[in-house]
């Protein structure tokens, strides 16, 4: 048993490494790509209860692992949310999935770039339907569970039963965050339109980067809001995020909104000097519902900066209060438009009812979309009607410019980065989270993240500590457009000093947890 435990510990250690570390191991030959792939696939099986995966592409992944050439990301296990197109033969594992499910015939550019560097994709992860939601609870494949809800700190601090009192991952890219957090992959791609990568990143205790709009290609990312969507990068260390950013950034002819990368790929400085740094704390981000513990972390890190010689200043983003409403109007309008293609004619779910084309459209769309998506489509169409267009859509665009200008003014006044919370609190129990509907939750939980999307700026969430409930708390940094590298340098500075633990430290082999469970019930 001792040997078994050691073996398990070794595997766990291997899986909890950063990309840089495991790359080294692969290159040295301490582990082969195929072995690593098998270990990850095993772990995926073990963490099935998290429901983080929609499709596990095991055969394809093993093939990729075997063929992996000596490249930058050779053998690195990755996942991405289902919102990215990826050529697979779909294996429908759940019965309630409607037939006629769509399998894309091409790979998203960002996925392809990773594969070209030798990465191994083990599966497509679970999420809120069409990336609409802040919990990853509203998808056709069921909700995703936060791996920290099954770890010792949560169990011991709250005394709750993880199976009945499991916590949400946040969303909408919850499956990707859960995958990286539960050590089934080293890198996951999410999407970020209003915070969908940073939100679950914060709640799952992982690094989640939303790059500057236009840096990463959206070709193959099923669009939600074309003017705000970006592919998000989720890793366990800031250094990894920088590495992946280098691989992914750059102009793509297939996406006309991409811009050239600002600089040659540079490593992040090991010792970033914060004495020349000015950190802004926006007044308006003391939002209602912000938890005490998050405020504590916010102060803790702000103090860290100050003690190290950085200038920490209160700043103002005066139009913050209008941001969430503005975001919702624009989001719904673009959603209504982008979802118009799902008519059941060319691909996807088609209803059996075909008395007329109109009826077929209506029933296909009604059956195929959940009520969250339908709600946004209807709202969006309302805002776009001729008589409402100016009053809602154009007005929202004007407000959007004001919000973007708020950031510009602050950054032009000498502030280098902004430090804010990412989420209001640590992860909620599913039973608590579902007390409010999707729209309400989105409105509450997107408060710190969505204005960044409207301004097209880069932002990153970094885990800083575990809460009293044993769940991760993260903080967000926001930088001016195209300053992604600098943003990450500052983020790394925080990461080096906060000492956020690895989940592997608390891992118990599942059968041991069973024994513990039995003890409790006695």
């Amino acid at each position, binding site marked *: 048993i001792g040997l078994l435990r050691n073996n398990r510990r070794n595997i766990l250690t291997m899986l909890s490494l950063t990309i840089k570390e495991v790359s080294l191991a692969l290159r040295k030959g301490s582990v082969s790509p195929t072995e690593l792939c098998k270990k990850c696939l095993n772990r995926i099986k073990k963490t099935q209860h998290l429901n983080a995966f929609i499709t596990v592409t095991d055969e394809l992944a093993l093939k990729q692992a075997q063929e992996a050439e000596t490249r930058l990301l050779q053998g690195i296990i990755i996942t991405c949310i289902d919102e990215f197109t990826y050529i697979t033969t779909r294996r429908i594992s759940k019965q309630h999935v409607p037939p006629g499910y769509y399998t894309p015939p091409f790979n998203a550019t960002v996925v392809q770039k990773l594969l070209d560097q030798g990465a191994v994709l083990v599966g497509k992860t679970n999420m809120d339907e069409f990336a609409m939601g802040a919990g990853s609870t509203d998808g056709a494949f069921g909700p995703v569970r936060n791996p920290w809800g099954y770890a010792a700190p949560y169990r011991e601090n709250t005394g709750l039963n993880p199976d009945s009192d499991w916590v949400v991952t946040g969303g909408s890219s919850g499956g990707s965050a859960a995958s990286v957090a539960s050590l089934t992959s080293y890198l996951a791609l999410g999407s970020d339109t209003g915070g969908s990568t940073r939100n679950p990143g914060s709640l799952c205790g992982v690094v989640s980067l939303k790059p500057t709009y236009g840096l990463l290609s959206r*070709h193959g990312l099923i669009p939600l809001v074309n003017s705000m969507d970006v592919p998000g990068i989720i890793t366990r260390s800031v250094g990894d995020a920088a590495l992946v950013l280098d691989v992914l950034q750059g102009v793509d002819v297939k996406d*006309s909104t991409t811009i050239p990368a600002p600089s040659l790929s540079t490593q992040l400085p090991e010792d970033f000097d914060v004495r020349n740094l000015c950190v802004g704390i926006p007044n308006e981000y003391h939002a209602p519902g912000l938890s005490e513990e998050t405020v504590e972390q916010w102060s803790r890190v702000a103090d860290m900066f100050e003690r190290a010689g950085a200038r920490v200043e209160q700043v103002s983003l005066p139009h913050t209060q209008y941001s969430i409403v503005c975001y919702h109007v624009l989001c719904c309008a673009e959603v209504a438009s982008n979802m118009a293609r799902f008519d059941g004619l060319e691909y996807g779910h088609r209803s059996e009812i075909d008395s007329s084309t109109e009826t077929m459209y209506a029933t296909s769309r009604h059956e195929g979309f959940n009520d969250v998506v339908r709600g946004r489509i209807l709202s969006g169409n309302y805002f*776009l009607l001729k008589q409402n267009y100016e009053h809602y859509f154009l007005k929202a665009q004007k407000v959007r410019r004001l919000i973007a200008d708020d950031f510009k003014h602050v950054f032009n006044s000498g502030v280098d980065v902004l430090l804010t919370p990412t989420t209001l609190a640590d992860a909620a129990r599913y039973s608590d989270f579902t007390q409010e509907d999707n729209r309400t939750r989105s409105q509450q939980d997107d408060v710190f993240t969505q204005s960044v999307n409207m301004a097209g700026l880069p932002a990153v969430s970094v885990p800083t500590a575990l809460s009293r409930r044993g769940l991760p708390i993260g903080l967000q940094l926001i930088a001016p457009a195209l300053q992604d590298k600098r943003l990450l340098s500052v983020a790394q500075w925080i990461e080096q000093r906060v000492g956020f633990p690895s989940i592997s430290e608390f891992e118990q082999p599942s059968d041991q947890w069973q024994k513990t469970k039995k003890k409790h019930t006695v």
Partner: protein
Amino acid sequence: HNGRWGLKAVAPRLWNALPDSPQQLVGVVGLEIHAQIRSNTKLFSASAVRFSSPPNSLVSFFDASLPGTLPVLNKRCVEAAVMTGLALNCTINQKSLFDRKHYFYADLPAGYQITQQRRPIAVDGVLNYSLMGGKKKKNQVVRKSARITQIQLEQDSGKSLHDDLQSQTLIDLNRAGVGLMELVMEPDMSCGEEAAAAVRELQLILQALGTCEGNMSEGQLRVDANVSVHRPGQPFGVRAEVKNINSARNLARAIDYEIQRQIQVLESGGTVQNETRAYDSKTGGTVPMRDKEGLQDYR
């Protein structure tokens, strides 16, 4: 009195104000022309543009609206629109915008057409044309002009083939996404002959530029006519749109028929409907088309 320099022609209002002057209903015609751009590939995708290919053989992922695909603008199409605009004395908008016009139809995979309603590439032009006129012998060249409101770049739709035998509709997306220049013209014409002459001139211009092959029978140039009647000096009447015209000659016939039809409707005490009508080449007349179900909001 009825000559070219007579009172009626030169000062119609005054003429109409005179007691006992006949109040003639006259036609008012404006054309909406869709010209298929002569380019190798489509407006936003790399699919080839070819006439008469096997169904769905020229369809890229983007043309089929597969999720995750994005439009990439074809430079040649922009050049064609600018050249056409300049040839028609338009002002070229250095910055123009694309809009989405939303409606659901089987030959429109994305559920919207990408077009340039709000700020098109060219505005305020003039199409100068001429036709034979004159008092009796019609042996004089009469110069006319029709104003062009705007020229916009937009996507063509696919084709629907209705198979009533098996009660199904077959969709061919070969044409979906092909670049079009839509020329919107002011209602400056008054009869079929003028419209036909204008279209013939336009065809020559486009063919000379090489921006459109201009063949109406092959669908490379599609002309719809907006026709209404009124008494000179009074506001324009309700207009009907006439479609399904495949030659300049049929255009003239369709317009003249429609003008007469509307005059008859009004003279018998009826009202002209704001509707879409199709030209029936067999009868030489126009018939109401499948209705558009009220006012469409294209959002």
